[in-house]
């Protein structure tokens, strides 16, 4: 039996194509279709229901130290309202999940984690939870993302006094919508400027509808969410990340705070691993999907973990793991698709320059 998000009825009413994802009946695309939805998000503002994701509050005097122990990131000096992307590691240094942790107050953190990993994450966190730190799932909250260059203007209409223009990338602000407490985080999974709003689930349908009244805002399904993140080189847990892959292999070494080694699995993380996550582009007609093997000559050197079509670049792209010596930009490769070898090239993970709030500031 699949679960429904608080916005299920809105999706059905909009004739979304629904399908199970991580135990939830989710919108894959709406009437506009995945390509139009993808382009709309890059040009205007896309509205995403991501209420299937896990949300929780970790609090208590030892909360910062605890989060610095279950992830390779130190939260000891993290300023209030700052969000960090990081991973939960196991004893082997493998990735249990990737997640966003935001310091709301000195001893209070807001955590957002993957839908498909909820049960595993919660069990793991509770197993490691020290005395004096509490973990409370925010199961009563929906999570709605608004992403794209017109997201700020559209969201500001719902929060006229929140001064969103001064909310910088990877920070959070508490506000209220029609008297209800919300978290507004300036971040996302698309590479565009944008926000994620955590709102009580009974208010979610009205909030969703209010945003959709703006002609610049369109609902976007999970298919475009996937193609948007793939263009940015963002990993998707269960495909590009798993419990046997370390942050260094996953090209997420940047989440590891320098000089911070007191976290689960730290000693097992090889700084020079045999394989690394890379981006791949196809130079010939065709599309390579997850599981396609990467060759150099007759030697198998890697495997794609995600692959598909990039609506922005109008070409096939992917990401995967390759033997470290070949993990360099411009390395010619071949990818096998249904018995046919397609010429490709290794490149950096990101196919587009991120246009998040921070990078907008840099550009101006």
């Amino acid at each position: 039996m699949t679960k429904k998000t608080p916005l299920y009825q809105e999706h059905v009413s909009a004739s979304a194509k629904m399908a199970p994802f991580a135990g939830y009946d989710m919108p894959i695309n709406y009437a506009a279709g995945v390509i139009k939805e993808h382009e709309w998000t890059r040009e205007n503002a896309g509205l995403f229901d991501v209420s299937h994701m896990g949300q929780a509050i970790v609090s208590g005097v030892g909360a910062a130290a605890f989060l610095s122990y279950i992830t390779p990131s130190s939260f000891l000096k993290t300023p209030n309202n700052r969000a960090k992307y990081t991973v939960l590691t196991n004893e082997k240094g493998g990735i249990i999940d990737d997640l966003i942790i935001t310091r709301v107050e000195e001893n209070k953190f807001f955590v957002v984690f993957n839908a498909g990993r909820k049960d595993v994450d919660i069990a793991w966190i509770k197993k490691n939870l020290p005395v004096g730190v509490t973990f409370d799932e925010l199961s009563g909250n929906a999570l709605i993302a608004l992403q794209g260059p017109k997201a700020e203007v559209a969201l500001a209409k719902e929060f006229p006094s929140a001064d969103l223009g001064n909310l910088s990338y990877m920070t959070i602000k508490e506000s209220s919508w029609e008297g209800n407490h919300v978290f507004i985080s300036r971040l996302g999974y698309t590479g565009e400027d944008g926000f994620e709003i955590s709102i009580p689930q009974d208010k979610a349908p009205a909030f969703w509808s209010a945003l959709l009244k703006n002609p610049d805002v369109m609902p976007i399904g999970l298919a475009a969410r996937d193609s948007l993140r793939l263009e940015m080189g963002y990993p998707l847990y269960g495909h590009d990340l798993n419990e046997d892959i370390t942050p260094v292999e996953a090209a997420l070494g940047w989440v590891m705070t320098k000089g911070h080694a007191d976290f689960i699995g730290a000693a097992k993380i090889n700084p020079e691993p045999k394989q690394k996550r890379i981006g791949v582009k196809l130079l010939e007609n065709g599309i390579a999907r997850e599981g396609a093997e990467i060759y150099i000559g007759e030697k198998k050197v890697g495997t794609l973990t995600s692959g598909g079509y990039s609506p922005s670049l109008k070409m096939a792209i992917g990401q995967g793991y390759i033997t470290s010596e070949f993990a360099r930009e411009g390395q010619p490769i071949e990818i096998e698709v249904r018995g046919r070898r397609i010429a490709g090239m290794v490149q950096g993970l990101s196919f587009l320059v991120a246009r998040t709030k921070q990078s907008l500031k840099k550009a101006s």
Partner: protein
Amino acid sequence: MSNVPANLKYTDQHEWLKLDGDIATVGITDYAQGALGDLVFVELPAKGRQVKTGESFVVVESVKAASEVYAPISGEVVEVNEALTKSPELINSAPYDGGWICKIRATDKGELAKLLDAGAYQKLAA
């Protein structure tokens, strides 16, 4: 409701055929293209290929996934729609027209009699 032209034949695998003597022009139905979503790549069969009913002979790829198309009849592929190489989206925008996939010369005319008519297919795709 998807469009099911009355003058065509159909299979339960959501393909349409337009018969002209022993030559069948083949494509996928409006219902099928709608279910697949935006198509971004079509792997066409080689001209001259002999196909058997039910064998996978075309792959259509949406942004999300690859789907196989099965030969609706046995015969020789005598022509393919090269326009799909550059514009696979023709299958979405004009599934019964510019989005045709290939032409097959039927080797077993008996198979043609077994194809579904529009009324029978309409019930399947409802």
